[in-house]
């Protein structure tokens, strides 16, 4: 204090604050009062990463080889040298364009977030140079005097020097939802506990305060947590790992086949330059150039679909992560529950009644005929300070804004639903005196005139902690009659109180007293300070219990998670009893499972004697967790399927997440507070709440639930699983034709036939006809109930597994190649070149100086005539692959079910894909057939149908495969043929 005095001037009560000059000095030293945004990669690095990621390296190598070949050929004066230059340019363009596309997609999804994190610049009322002024919160420096009032966000960590009725909401920092009062008193060593510090980014709920800034920017408590969050590493998403794995497989195949055939070609006495050109062809044929772009599009389509269902995905790849989630660590308040107190039970006439706690209640259906209820409802209505904000007559009662604390709000709404026009009733029963609730009395009391004009008595109503209320009562109302409160009645009360309390509900007792008319005439001056009226021997009316009830969609969602093999763990800062009650009501702890404590209680033995494996459920207190070793935590996570962690701190949340990840689980964590952000970051997928969530939580999360509803996570899981299945289909579809593109080169090298398909033509398949169909598979519906199977094991269930690769490459791909080769041989044979003539023809065929080669019929061909025929062959080969890819597309719709079970017409986009495929092929052949650079020619109509039988064969073969898989699950066939 001493060191601060210069700033206060002569009068401590009138602080002068810093001078502007001094403030500027400190600002220059400490920097602005803002959190450093998480370090972001420079855009250019992100862009370059896209340029070298995935298959790009392979294609760059291809392009480079092309240019080298071009250089050598130019030096040798080969006429066709420029083909290689163009091919190199095209390959480079493919890489650059797909890179730009991927970059654009990524930037787009990042932008969604950028809009989220943008906030209106915050203002702070600061005292400088002895006068109050509004400055941007960023300009605050240590030592500044700031004033705050109810509704403000605290602009920095502040030590209070003056406070009046100041309460702050620290929930974003600590997770405690109760408002905390703040004063100037130093109450605790720990800055987090002491009452005279208000923290940056928390809100002041009511009252006013003045304080001095003690920390700014990253030095604040929040700033430190945020930097803790950013310290948690950003690892790869499961789908990124899967795609990397897939790229490795394909690149491995490409490189090994390429090198193998390079060696074969060289040892077959091909020129090294020719061998290099073959190598390029093999690389281009093997790399599915369009696939990574397709995957991105499919993911973003799913992301859009999820956004419609209130799951906003920040990171595209997180779409799939949710699908492979095996454990969800869910917050309680707001996610599982409605985040508002609601009356759940009533006790009057010696009986417990249940109230409707759903979100949209309009009536209450319990028995309201009893006179006791009439009395109770009056107490509930009158002994309540909460009020609706005016002007909300048309708003549903449950949605109206109320001024008042949580329990009073609950009571007000409850009364309004049943009685209607609570404000009118209060007006008719004018309030004469009132003692608000305080923690020493633990009751609230008010005295009213009655609305009955004949009844001149005053009505005193009281509510409060049940045991305190009961102490003051001598009678109890049963069926409208006042009866003496004997032992038996008191025991009945105890039982009810215990029962409701055991449900984790907050119980309030209500009583009243009609003040006798003679003792308290009209003009009696009630004085609340001296309490000149009786506060004992009252009449007990009833109990009401309140809870923050679960959202009505949650139990269903939890059971869906359970059948989907996802463990739902509740992690909350709340009391264990409440946590357990909510867990039971939403099914996180199922109806028939018990905790160790439950068993102990049932068997009446000490907890230590219970066999822990008998208990399916476990409720772990934060205090217990603190003393646990890693092994003990692991044991709990493995042994119990239904776990609730109560009274947990942010650090413990992180420990729990790490524990789950040690079990090889993919962990989803939900959270809203700043305190959750390290756990959100640590999780495989962090899910922040869109409404209640703090910015720090949203920043740390990968996904944002716009409606804060747990049920939305389940739809997200469903979408995530679907996209994983569909990506599998897309990849299988795309990989298949790689063989049909690769075989021509291999046959060309080994059998020396004229080249069946050119590299440019291959690119037209990969980046032309195949693109829309492979995206269309992302629209495919699920084959069976994907929510009835276990989540995939992230290390065992790969996106591209051996079966998928082998079935696509070595079976369907081979059939496709055969079909395409048939078309190739047909075209050549019908134009005069029989298959046996073609073998070994390559060298002469490609000889520019050989202009009278004889075909099988004795006709002589010039080089250009041959080339043109070769292009016709390319076109026929291309068309055949396209036709067979249509069949491939149809079979890829399902992996297990028959196409007829799935329905041919259900996914309309597939048909768009098929039409686009054929349309593109038609345009290329007939529209652009005259452009020589593209190597397409107008094809005779019948050549379109040559591969058709093979297309049908593909379909039939795959139907048989699926039939056997369905018929003989677990058989050799199933293991080897199901991908």
């Amino acid at each position: 204090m001493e060191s601060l005095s210069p700033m206060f001037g002569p009068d401590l009560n009138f602080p002068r604050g810093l001078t502007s000059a001094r403030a500027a000095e400190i600002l220059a030293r400490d920097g602005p009062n803002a959190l450093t945004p998480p370090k972001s990669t420079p855009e250019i690095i992100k862009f370059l990463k896209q340029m070298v990621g995935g298959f790009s390296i392979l294609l760059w190598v291809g392009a480079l080889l092309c240019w080298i070949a071009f250089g050598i050929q130019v030096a040798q004066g080969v006429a066709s040298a420029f083909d290689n230059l163009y091919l190199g340019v095209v390959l480079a363009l493919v890489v650059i364009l797909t890179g730009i596309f991927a970059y654009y997609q990524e930037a787009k999804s990042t932008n969604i977030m950028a809009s989220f994190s943008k906030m209106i610049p915050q203002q702070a009322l600061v005292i400088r140079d002895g006068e109050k002024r509004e400055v941007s919160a960023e300009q605050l420096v240590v030592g500044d005097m700031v004033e705050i009032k109810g509704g403000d966000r605290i602009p920095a960590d502040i030590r209070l020097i003056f406070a009046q009725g100041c309460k702050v909401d620290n929930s974003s920092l600590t997770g405690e939802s109760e408002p905390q009062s703040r004063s100037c008193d130093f109450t605790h060593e720990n800055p987090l506990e002491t009452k005279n510090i208000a923290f940056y980014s928390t809100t002041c709920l009511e009252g006013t305060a003045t304080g001095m800034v003690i920390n700014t920017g990253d030095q604040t408590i929040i700033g430190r947590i945020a930097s803790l969050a950013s310290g948690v590493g950003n690892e790869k998403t499961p789908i990124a790992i899967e795609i990397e794995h897939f790229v490795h497989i394909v690149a491995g195949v490409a490189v090994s086949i390429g090198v193998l055939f390079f060696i074969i070609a060289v040892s077959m006495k091909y020129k090294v330059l020719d061998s290099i050109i073959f190598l390029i062809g093999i690389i281009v044929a093997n790399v599915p150039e369009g696939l990574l772009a397709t995957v991105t599009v499919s993911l973003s389509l799913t992301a859009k679909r999820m956004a419609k269902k209130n799951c906003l995905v920040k990171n595209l790849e997180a779409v799939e992560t949710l699908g492979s989630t095996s454990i969800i660590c869910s917050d309680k308040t707001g996610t599982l529950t409605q985040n508002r107190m609601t009356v759940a039970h009533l006790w009057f006439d010696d009986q417990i009644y249940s109230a409707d706690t759903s979100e949209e209640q309009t009536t209450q259906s319990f028995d309201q005929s009893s006179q006791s209820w009439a009395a109770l409802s009056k107490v509930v209505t009158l002994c309540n300070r909460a009020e609706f904000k005016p002007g909300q007559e048309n708003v549903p009662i449950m949605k109206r804004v109320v001024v008042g604390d949580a329990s009073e709000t609950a009571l007000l709404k409850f009364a309004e639903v049943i009685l209607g026009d609570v404000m009118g009733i209060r007006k008719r029963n004018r309030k004469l005196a009132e003692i608000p609730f305080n923690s020493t009395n633990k009751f609230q009391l008010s005295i009213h005139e009655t609305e009955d004009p004949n009844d001149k008595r005053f009505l005193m109503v009281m509510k409060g902690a049940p045991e305190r209320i009961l102490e003051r009562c001598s009678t109890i109302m049963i069926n409208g009659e006042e009866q003496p409160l004997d032992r038996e009645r008191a025991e009945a009360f105890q039982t009810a109180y215990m029962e409701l309390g055991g449900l984790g509900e907050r119980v309030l007792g209500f009583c009243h007293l009609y003040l006798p008319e003679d003792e308290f005439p009209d003009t009696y001056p009630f004085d609340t300070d001296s309490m000149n009226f009786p506060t004992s021997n009252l009449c007990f009316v009833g109990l009401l219990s309140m809870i923050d009830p679960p959202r009505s969609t949650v139990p269903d969602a939890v059971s869906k998670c359970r059948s989907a093999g996802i463990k739902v763990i509740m992690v909350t800062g709340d009391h264990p009893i409440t946590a357990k009650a909510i867990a039971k009501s939403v099914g996180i702890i199922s109806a028939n499972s018990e905790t160790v404590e439950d068993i102990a209680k049932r068997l009446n033995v000490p907890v230590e004697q219970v066999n822990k494996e008998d208990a399916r459920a476990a409720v772990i207190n934060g205090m217990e967790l603190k003393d646990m070793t890693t092994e003990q935590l692991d044991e709990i996570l493995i042994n119990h399927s239904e776990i609730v962690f109560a009274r947990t701190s942010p650090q413990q949340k992180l420990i729990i997440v790490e524990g789950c990840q040690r079990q090889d689980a993919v962990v989803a964590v939900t959270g809203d507070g700043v305190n959750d952000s390290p756990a959100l970051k640590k999780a495989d997928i962090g899910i922040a709440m869109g409404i209640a969530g703090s910015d720090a939580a949203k920043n740390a999360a990968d996904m944002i639930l716009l409606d804060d509803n747990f049920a939305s996570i389940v739809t997200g899981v469903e979408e995530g699983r679907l996209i994983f299945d569909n990506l599998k289909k897309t990849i299988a579809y795309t990989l298949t034709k790689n063989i049909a593109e690769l075989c021509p080169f291999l046959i060309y090298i080994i059998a020396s036939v004229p080249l069946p398909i050119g590299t440019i033509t291959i690119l037209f398949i990969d980046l032309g006809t195949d693109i829309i169909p492979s995206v269309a598979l992302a629209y495919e519906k699920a084959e069976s109930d994907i929510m009835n199977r276990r989540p995939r094991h992230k290390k065992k269930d790969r996106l591209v597994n051996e079966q998928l690769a082998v079935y696509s490459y070595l079976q369907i791909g081979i059939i496709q190649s055969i079909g395409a080769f048939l078309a190739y041989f047909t075209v050549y044979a019908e134009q005069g070149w029989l298959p046996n003539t073609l073998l070994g023809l390559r060298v002469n065929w490609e000889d520019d100086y050989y202009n009278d080669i004889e075909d099988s019929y004795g006709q002589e061909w010039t080089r250009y005539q041959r080339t043109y025929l070769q292009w016709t062959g390319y076109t026929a080969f291309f068309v055949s692959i396209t036709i067979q890819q249509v069949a491939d597309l149809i079979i890829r719709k399902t992996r297990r079910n028959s196409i007829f079970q799935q329905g041919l017409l259900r996914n309309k986009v597939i048909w768009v894909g098929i039409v686009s495929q054929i349309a593109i092929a038609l345009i290329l052949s007939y529209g652009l057939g005259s452009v020589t650079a593209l190597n397409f020619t107008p094809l005779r109509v019948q050549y379109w149908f040559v591969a058709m039988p093979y297309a049908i064969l593909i379909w039939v073969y795959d139907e048989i495969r699926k039939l056997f898989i369905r018929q003989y699950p677990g058989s050799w066939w199933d293991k080897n043929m199901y991908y």
Partner: protein
Amino acid sequence: MAALNEKKTCSQRMENFKRFVWNPDTGQLMGRTLINWVWISLYYVAFYIVMTGLFSLAIYSLMRTLNPYTPDYQDRLKSPGVTLRPDVYGEGGLEIYYNASDKNSWEKYVTTLHKFLSAYNTTAQHANINCTSEKYFFQKSFLGPNKTKYSCKFTSDMLENCSGLANSTFGFPEGQPCLIIKMNRIINFLPGNGTAPRVSCTAQHDDFSPLELQYYPVNGTFNLHYFPYYGKKAQPTYSNPLVAVKFLNITRNAEVTVVCRVIGTGITSDNPHDPYEGKVEFKMRIQD
């Protein structure tokens, strides 16, 4: 995001790989048990046998549909290509570069021509008939030996001065070389629409004096009775008619680019992509 740390040390990777190659616990070799390998191999053998069978069947039926005499389509053979003999290519295409006084420089051309014309000597043409008609030689039925059609004789002596018989050096040492123009065969192709197509050579740049040329046979025509061609199976002994061109006044020590066209209805020589369709272009330089 996730803590999926997949970093492994090199030795761990090697260990994993070893386990993959041979897993002693499960008896798995490269991820499969031995019996499993047998099964999968058998399946693939069967699969490929069936596929090969299907492919062979398809090729077989394709061959069955083909006409052995004429191809189904001649989409790319609308107009015949034209070639030159001797066909010696240098950096810029066909090149006849030699030194008249240096035998080594022109001997290769002469040898090529002799070799080429050996197919046209009387013995080689023995099986073919003498034709005198100036019209297309249509043959509806197979009247020749072994169910073939007749082919007309073209013997090298028809090239008179360029036959290589009288002057075995084809005029190369004299600086008046003979070159031979050949038109590609196309089945059922009828060039000229009733008029015999003829060869016409011109220098591309008329910087020098106009070319003085002598064509053999006279007028440089391809006699119509060599057409139409019925294909290798119907006319196994068919040989293309030839036209020889003797260049009489090639400017010495200068490069002359010559284009020889075959002129006749149905023969086009203006395809920008195909330099050999209906014409042949070559360079000549004769040094002293």
